[in-house]
Structure formats: structure tokens, C-alpha cells
């Protein structure tokens, strides 16, 4: 019989020590930024009903969700997304709160991947949602918050590209295509399949009419700097599409006047989750990794699926991808705390904890020796790369041993603490 007790499932990971510290530091930093900006923090359950993520235009495929049954035979899933549970909470528990509502969260989501493709099945996301505001002000705030967060974390080279779901929806408004054909068209635009898209449109030219043909053909190319908007305006007269461009422009102007315009690019061919998003969409890339590090957008129809109609916009940062960016940039090795270990005779335990607390208060990592013999404690300290060992002698006297060069001197606890303060 196979025994897996010494293994972990494909796609999962143990995160140890420094990696673990770095990850939690990022989560804490993001939490602080969001909470300081007035976002209210929520925790939602890891297990949710399958139905929360199920619906006509919801984009999470059932084969990507980990499913199990509760004791009443109902289907549960390990949450594959953070936004839908927040939509559920908003439409139920928070429907009478003061809007606009600012919410932030951090937590793990779960997705089933094919084996052996190097993807993880448990990912940490940290994100925000602004619920109850339709204004481009809210869109801009979300994007500005995202950029500021990436800068604060220390991501050096990144770009946030903005799309607008309404632009594509406008272009296909008067077009008569079957559902299958429409999905094919969307797929060709999304994958920037220029050639095949051109052929597909030429084949159907008669049915498409001439109105938006040029714009559709050019759609995959409509990405780049802000000048793309002017280009796009020339291509269509469709009001919905034009107003989509106007929203992007308004949002861009706000970001620009905050001085963050350099991080923004435009991609009108971003039509990935077009049923889910109803306005702006955005994705962030770094030059260090091949995947998105952040994604988000406006989803005005989602909350109504849970019984209360409210506009909303938000983003989620993929904390694990951010960590690989920082690692590749090579700036994750911050200055480490100084480390000391205290070795003491059992009879002196009474004062040791108090002493350790006062050392820790100076920002020094301090652990207590679990050894009986001083020599063993020294070997341990050397292997653990601890800087100093403090041996407690009688009468408040201590001996400080520098682990590297084995130099030592005697002093008193009081004096030692005082010397730390001077550093």
C-alpha cells in the first residue's frame, strides 16, 4: 500500500523560516496600508458552499475547485476566490451598512491544477474592494492603491495595464453571431491571435456589417501607452465603446495627476473574464516573472447574484508571485536582527525571563539555552549563526562571549542593557 504520510500533495508547499517571514511581512505591510486607508478587514471561511461560486456568468470552472461534502450531503468547496465570498457577505450581512463600503482581506485560495506544471494549488491573496460606488473616482482609487502597494513592497519594474470590458461589449453589440462564434471571437481577441482573427472576420464580413469590423480586427493591437485611446476613438462610433474610452481617460488623468502615470499602460484587447467584469479591468506585470502579480476590475453585476444590487471595484495581489519577484530582484535579504542566546544555571531561572524580555525590547532576537553544558550551548550557537552568548553568573554578573572569535568579557546585566540602548 502506498503511504503518503511523509509527503505533501502536488501543488502544495511548506514555507519555512526566512521565506515564511518574508511572506508574512508582505501581508502585514499590505494590511497596514489598507487599514490605514480606511478599509475594514474581513475573514471569510475557507470552506464555502459550492453554490457561492456557481452561476451563469461566473468564471470559475467546476473542475478547478476542490470539493467535499458536509454532514448533510451538501457540496462544499475550498474557496477558489476571495471576491465572491465578499459579495455574499455584502449582500447579506452588510446590506444596511454605510456605503461606499471599503473592505480588505488577506487569505488563501485553492485551485486544482494539472499535475507537473509547476503551479501551486494554494495561493495567498491580499486585496481590497470598494462597494457601492459607481464613480471613476473609486476605480482610480483602487488602481492608485495597487500601484502604491507595489511600490511600498519594493517591486522595482512593473506595469499596470488597464482595459475596459465595455469597449469590446460595445463593438459586438449589433453583431449577429451565435454563442459559439462569439466565444471564438472573444478567444481570438484575448489571445492576440491577429492573423486568425482577421480571417475569421473576413469570412463573416457580410453578417458583421462594416460598422465595427475595422475596430474588431485592430482590437488585439490596441495595447500600449495612453495614445492607444486616441487610436481606438478613430475606429468606432459605437457610443458604448466610446464611453468606455472616456472612463479610462478620466481614470488615467487622476492617476497621472497623482504622479503615477508612468506605471500605467492600456490594453483594450483584455477581454478575459468579460462576463464577470462590467467596466475597467486591470492586470499587473513585473519584468521578473511571466505571470500576473495583481489583477482586478469593476464588477457591478456580481453582488446582485446574492440578492442586493451594488456596484463594486477591487483588486487582489498575488502574494506568492510578489515573493518570487522580490527574490529575483535580490532585495529580499534585509538586514537581519542581531541574535543572542542566554545560557544559565537552573537555580538562576527566576531572573532569566525578565532579562530576556528587556533584551528583546531592544530589537534583538534572544533565545534561552536548553542545554545543561556550556560547551554544547556554544556549539549550538555557532551552528545557528547566533552572534553572542550570554552566560549568567552569580550576583547579577554576566559573561558575554562573541561566538565568532570567542572573545569574552564580564559585565553586569544592567550595564549590558544600557550598552544596547546606546547602539
Amino acid at each position, binding site marked *: 500500500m502506498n503511504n503518503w504520510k511523509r509527503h505533501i500533495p502536488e501543488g502544495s508547499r511548506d514555507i519555512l523560516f526566512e521565506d515564511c517571514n518574508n511572506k508574512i511581512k508582505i501581508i502585514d505591510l499590505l494590511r497596514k496600508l489598507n487599514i490605514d486607508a480606511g478599509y475594514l478587514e474581513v475573514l471569510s471561511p475557507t470552506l464555502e458552499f459550492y453554490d457561492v461560486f456557481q452561476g451563469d456568468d461566473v468564471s470559475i470552472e467546476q473542475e478547478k475547485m476542490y470539493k467535499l461534502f458536509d454532514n448533510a450531503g451538501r457540496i462544499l468547496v475550498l474557496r477558489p476566490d476571495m471576491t465572491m465570498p465578499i459579495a455574499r457577505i455584502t449582500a447579506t450581512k452588510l446590506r444596511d451598512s454605510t456605503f461606499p463600503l471599503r473592505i480588505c482581506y488577506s487569505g488563501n485560495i485553492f485551485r486544482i491544477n*494539472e499535475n507537473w*506544471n*509547476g503551479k501551486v494549488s494554494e495561493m495567498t491573496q491580499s486585496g481590497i474592494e470598494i462597494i457601492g460606488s459607481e464613480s471613476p473616482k473609486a476605480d482610480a482609487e483602487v488602481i492608485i492603491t495597487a500601484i502604491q502597494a507595489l511600490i511600498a513592497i519594493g517591486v522595482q*519594474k512593473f*506595469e499596470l*495595464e488597464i482595459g475596459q470590458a465595455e469597449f469590446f461589449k460595445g463593438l459586438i453589440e449589433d453583431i449577429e453571431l451565435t454563442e459559439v462564434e462569439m466565444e471564438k471571437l472573444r478567444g481570438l481577441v484575448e*489571445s*492576440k*491571435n*491577429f*492573423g*486568425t482573427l482577421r480571417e475569421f472576420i473576413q469570412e463573416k464580413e457580410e453578417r458583421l456589417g462594416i460598422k465595427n469590423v475595422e475596430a474588431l480586427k485592430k482590437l488585439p493591437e490596441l*495595447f*500600449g501607452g495612453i495614445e492607444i485611446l486616441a487610436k481606438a476613438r478613430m475606429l468606432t462610433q459605437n457610443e458604448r465603446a466610446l464611453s468606455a474610452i472616456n472612463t479610462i481617460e478620466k481614470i488615467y488623468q487622476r492617476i497621472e495627476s497623482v504622479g503615477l502615470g508612468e506605471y500605467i*499602460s492600456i*490594453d483594450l484587447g483584455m477581454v478575459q473574464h468579460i462576463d464577470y467584469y462590467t467596466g475597467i479591468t486591470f492586470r499587473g*506585470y*513585473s*519584468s521578473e*516573472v*511571466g*505571470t*500576473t502579480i495583481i489583477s482586478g476590475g469593476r464588477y457591478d453585476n456580481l453582488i446582485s447574484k446574492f440578492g442586493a444590487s451594488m456596484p463594486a471595484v477591487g483588486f487582489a495581489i498575488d502574494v506568492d508571485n510578489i515573493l518570487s519577484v522580490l527574490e529575483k530582484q535580490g532585495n529580499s535579504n534585509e538586514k537581519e536582527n542581531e541574535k543572542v542566546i542566554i545560557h544559565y544555571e537552573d537555580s538562576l531561572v527566576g531572573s532569566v525571563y525578565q532579562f530576556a524580555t528587556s533584551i528583546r525590547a531592544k530589537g534583538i532576537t534572544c533565545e534561552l539555552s536548553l542545554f545543561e553544558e556550556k560547551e554544547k550551548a556554544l556549539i549550538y550557537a555557532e551552528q545557528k549563526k547566533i552572534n553572542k552568548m550570554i552566560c549568567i553568573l552569580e550576583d547579577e554578573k554576566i559573561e558575554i562571549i562573541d561566538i565568532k572569535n570567542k572573545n569574552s568579557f564580564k559585565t553586569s546585566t544592567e550595564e549590558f542593557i544600557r550598552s544596547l540602548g546606546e547602539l
Partner: protein
Amino acid sequence: MKAIRIALTKGRLEKYAISMFEGIGIDCTELKNKGRKLILKDEKNNIEFVLVKSTDVLTYVEHGAADIGIVGKDTLMEQNKEFYEVVDLKVGKCMFAVAALPSFKSYDGYNRKKIATKYPAVAKEYFKKNNEDVEIIKLDGSVELAPILGLSDAIVDLVETGDTLKENGLIIIEKICDISARMIVNRASMKMKKENISILIQKVQKYVDENEVTSL
């Protein structure tokens, strides 16, 4: 500026890719005399080539370890991965088809048909679309053998000239779709190295358009 890294499919497509990249002014000297080297460079244009198996092209490009890939549409269809599929190179043309012995009948009673293939995802998707309930058996080579030895009722495979089928007494029952080589681009690379990659795409598209006209 980091180099643009291109993953080429080893073998048949490699030759065409080299002549195409030479055609648009990239120095392929190292690529042609590769010896045991794994990364082959054109220092002047700041381009690096790697040669890998077709399915690995997708893996390298999806993870961004390579920015661009040259690979057959058959491989793209079999693997559900994320990337931009920017140019149809119009070479390496062939098709996916259902083939069987002449005695095969599509609608023959209620028996569940067995389909042998190297491309289970492609076969599954095709029969799902046609609302046909079939059993798919994955093989790794010489799929033509399966119906002859009675392992399966039919096969789904790449058909180039049809000679292999004919020699083994098989006929094409239905064409599934056309296949040709594609140029694919990692999503982040497309944005972060936009200028260089856009120019490359335009040059390749132009090369493809011109060479298609002359071959007519």
C-alpha cells in the same frame, strides 16, 4: 536590456524557423552550428534561442522562461495553457482527422466507440462537441496500429499527406481542423518588452504574408 529568448520546436519546424528568422535579418549562425550548446545567441540583435520538444515550448513560454515560442497548433490544442498566439506561420500544415478501417460506421448501434489517439484532449473536445459518447485510449506512437489490431474502432491523429493511413488500409472518416505552426508570446513579456516584441511580430507577419504569396 534583457535579451529576448525564443524557444524553437526541435526537428521539422526548426529548419523553417531558422530560414524565417534569417529572412527577417536575425543572425542564426550559432543556431545552425549548435554543437552541444543549449543557448544559442545572436548578440547583435540581443536574441537567444533554445531548442526544446514541442510540449516543452509551451511550458517555457507559459512560465516566462522563454518570451516567444515557435510550435505547432496541434500542441497548443492539446494543452490548455495561457499565452498570446500572435502569428499563424502557415507552414507545417496538416490536419487533425478521425480515421478508421473502411468497415467503420459512425452511427452503428449503441456501442460505445473506442478511439485511440496521441491527443486525448483534442479527441475528447471534438467528440464532446458532436455529443458523441466515446472511450478514449491514449497511445504514444503508431496510432494507426490500434484499429488494425482491434484495440480501437477509430483513431484521432495528425494527417499530413495521408500516405501512412493509406498504406495501412485506413481512411479518413472526418476532418477535425487544419493545423499549422504558430508563434506564441508570454503575456508578461508582451507587455514588459513591448517594443522589441512588437517589431519582431510585425517582421514575422510580413515574412509570412510575402512567402505565402510567392508560393501560390
